[in-house]
């Protein structure tokens, strides 16, 4: 059988190699495996035989044809992940095979390009967040949040964690899972039904001297921007707890960066920065910390730093502070992470510099305008509360309808419109009448009008 990708599989080479090894048959190399568990023949997986590229393409095509792609109008689904546009140059860059077929740059001298790109990613995100230290990636926002809380527990040696009740429910789940082995106590803070914002007073009461961290998202699950961040920071810091903030990075084109209001650790997801939706992944967990020895020594994940050659003449980049990591510190490591989402960091870096600070602001403004336009237009429909919460929002907002949303949603689908995210089964709202909409730069006014019109017809 011919392995199309593997050259040595040709018969002549194989024979000669076996001869040199000193065996007649390759199976002799497996003779140390207990006989009773060696398979007589390989499992019949795949499609029963080797496929050519063309056969594979046709099979895949026949499957993918069953997927429905919404681009006209683009999806209005919210839920932390939204439909954004991706500049073609970003894809061209991550399609460079020196990048995507590289391993972790353990040998920095031969991977300076990759390392520089990572360093630039870290630096650009740092400036976006106004934080000092950024790692090269966590898996996604949710694991970044979990790791942030774990780090805070290590830094403070405390076990109580205060979490805003209006964060994304899946992130809440992930945090709970990751803390399963840590004997942690997670305390949820209510949110205000009017504004959609966290209940500041309750938060102040819950945070105490056992509290390792306070975790808040800005904007939160409802798209609402927490505006008492300074007060929250103070509440946390007063008790020597760490203030962890989750952010949507594009919002930072116009929204205050967490570094400016006292965040100790910042997490988020770089998906909006040029990454494909890809049905949920790969995305890129952002993880940043203040410049603080105690904090940074507890940082999970990989860090790239600037350095120089041993002769002092040239600059270069290399992995730094590796003693935090599992391959050296093993069970005492700050995290078990090794493979991460590095390539996505290259994409995000390319995306950010293509826009620049000015472009980021422009884009954030445009998203703000469009999402507010959508909210306003929906509010014009009879019986629709839009936005449901009166806290100022960015990109996503909840609307509440006079009839169960899932029936509206179905009717929209039939019209080729992928509407908002039904919140019937989504904590923290669990409301049959509400949906979470996301409107981005991908939506023209006409797209939004189309949505509103289609909902109008469905009401």
């Amino acid at each position, binding site marked *: 059988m011919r392995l199309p990708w593997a050259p040595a599989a040709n018969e002549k080479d194989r024979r000669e190699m076996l001869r040199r090894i000193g065996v007649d048959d390759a199976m002799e190399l497996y003779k140390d495996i207990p006989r009773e568990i060696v398979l007589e023949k390989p*499992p019949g*997986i795949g499609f029963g035989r080797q496929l050519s590229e063309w056969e594979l393409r046709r099979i895949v095509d026949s499957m993918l044809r069953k997927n429905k792609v919404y681009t006209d109008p683009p999806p209005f689904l919210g839920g932390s992940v939204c439909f954004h546009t991706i500049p073609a140059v970003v894809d061209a860059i991550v399609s460079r095979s020196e990048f995507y077929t590289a391993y972790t740059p353990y040998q920095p001298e031969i991977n300076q390009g990759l390392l520089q790109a990572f360093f630039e990613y870290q630096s650009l995100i740092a400036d976006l967040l106004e934080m*000092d230290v950024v790692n090269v990636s966590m898996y996604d926002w949710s694991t970044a949040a979990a790791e942030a809380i774990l780090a805070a527990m290590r830094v403070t040696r405390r076990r109580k964690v205060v979490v805003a009740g209006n964060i994304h429910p899946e992130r809440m789940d992930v945090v709970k899972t990751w803390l*399963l*082995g840590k004997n942690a106590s997670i305390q949820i803070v209510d949110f205000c039904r009017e504004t959609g914002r966290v209940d500041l007073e309750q938060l102040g009461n819950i945070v105490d001297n056992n509290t390792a961290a306070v975790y808040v998202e800005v904007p939160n699950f409802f798209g609402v921007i927490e505006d008492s961040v300074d007060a929250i920071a103070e509440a946390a810091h007063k008790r020597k707890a760490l203030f962890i903030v989750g952010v949507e990075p594009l919002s930072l084109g116009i929204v205050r960066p967490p570094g400016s209001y006292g965040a100790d650790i910042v997490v988020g997801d770089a998906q909006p920065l040029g990454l494909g939706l890809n049905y949920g992944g790969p995305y890129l967990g952002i993880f940043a910390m203040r410049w603080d020895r105690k904090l940074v020594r507890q940082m999970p994940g990989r860090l790239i730093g600037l350095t120089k050659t041993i002769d002092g003449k040239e600059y270069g980049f290399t992995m730094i502070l590796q003693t935090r990591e599992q391959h050296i510190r093993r*069970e005492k490591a700050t995290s078990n992470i090794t493979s991460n989402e590095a390539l996505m960091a290259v994409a995000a870096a390319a995306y950010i510099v293509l*826009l620049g600070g000015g472009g980021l602001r422009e884009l954030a403004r445009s998203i703000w305008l469009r999402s507010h336009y959508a909210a306003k237009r929906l509010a014009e429909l009879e019986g629709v509360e839009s936005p449901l919460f009166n806290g100022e929002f960015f990109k996503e907002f909840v609307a509440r309808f006079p009839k169960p949303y899932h029936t509206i949603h179905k009717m929209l689908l039939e019209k080729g419109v992928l509407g908002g995210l039904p919140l019937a089964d989504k904590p923290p709202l669990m409301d049959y009448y509400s949906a979470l909409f996301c409107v981005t730069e991908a939506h023209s006014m006409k797209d939004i009008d189309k949505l509103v019109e289609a909902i109008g017809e469905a009401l």
Partner: protein
Amino acid sequence: MIPRARGSWRQARWNEPLVYELGSPNNSGFICPYSNEDAELERVLSTTPEEKLGRMLRDRAPEIPGLSEIEVTRHFMRLSQMSYGVDVGPVPLGSCTMKYNPKISEDIARDPRIRYLHPYQDPDTVQGLLEMLYLLERWLAELTGMDRCSLQTPAGAAGELAGALMIRKYFMDRGEDRDEMLIPDSAHGTNPASAAMAGFKVVRIPTSENGTVDMEALDAALSERTAGIMLTNPNTLGIFEDRILEIADKLHSIGALLYYDGANLNGIMGIVRPGDMGFDIIHLNIHKTFGAPHGGGGPGAGVVCARGELVDYLPRPLIAKKGNRYYWDYECEKCIGRIRMFYGNIVPLIKAFIYIAMLGGDGLREAAIQSVINTNYFIALIRGVDGYDLPYDPKRPRKHELVLSAKPLKQETGVTAEDVAKALLDRGLHAPTIYFPLIVDEALMIEFTESEPRRQIEEYAAALREIAREARHNPSAFKQLPKNTSVGRLDNVYANHPRSVTPTFRILRRRLQGEQLSL
């Protein structure tokens, strides 16, 4: 006649500044969609974000350089030429299974019918993708001898964490207070780290002289506190744990579980299954074994599989099928919950689907066999070369990888495994994994996988031979290597020193502005 050669290998070198030196916050290569509507929008809304954001308004645009598209392109193209992946040469990092990544998967993974799918789209609108994931799940379960797999874990380590948490929860549910996880000293660092994250105490099991788990030490470690053992097989020495059935019996007989670190599956897939070895929970590294590229560190994908009642503990949701319809099964009575958001790293998973679909079971087995031939062929070529040792029963065939020791070389010449690595780089060959596993001094851990051409393996062996020879003649020269990479040997002390460590440009900027920053 015509000369047959070019000069020695040289990596591209561009004196490429940081983006901060190239761009300015006033530049941009981005045209905002529908920007012609913005004025109209402000009119309709009769307000602006500046007005409404109040105290949460960012006072000015982020201090981030903007570049035009040509500048972005050139910058990253140049950086890419100063990088090195398996597409330009061998990257025989052991434990990492850097195999060739078929171009067809890159192509299909870019299909808009995957890329544009929102994770919260209604399942009925993504049946094709779910079908692929479903088949993949079935194939992986079959290949490993497991019952069900969760595709959610984004990497091997996350799979380990999931597995460790499953074990933890399993015993919690049974009211058993087992808090010890046995881990061989040859194990990958993620194993103890994951176990610790799940709240286990790690009990280190030594390796015996023949390179496998020391059975006496194992016996001594077993107790009613033992929750399980985390093993990889073949182990990180490339040696098959031939007493695996015995080990499984021992653990199971005291009610403990076996976790399989699937990073080393490549040499045995289609030949022997972890399930048949007695493992209860396993993870697989999609980006290692199944031809999804590593991306300079990621994205990867882990898949965690379980047998029997442990299936109930797998992270949810699981991919499922009823009639002709595929869906996500969220049912989670005992499960550990979610390891991350959504369903997993879809893109590498699709690549694994393609890899398996094209090879089929026969092809996977062939790939495994070829990878083992390549390992042992290399051993045959390097055997007897002065300076390198093959510790732990050198006669025994290795599987996916092998671990050499450069200790003799170091003792004789002072040239270390790291120096050997740099000398390889200097020849345009990526270095092996060095200083791992920890139980081998001056370790050089080498894995060619099935992908490397015979010629390349021979070249690699010849390079190591040459390096040993040169080390004897001029050992001091090694400390200056590499010379042919885009930059010379880098200063690790400076890189990590509290007063010079520089993880972002922001820190550099602050230092340049006179701040004394120390970590």
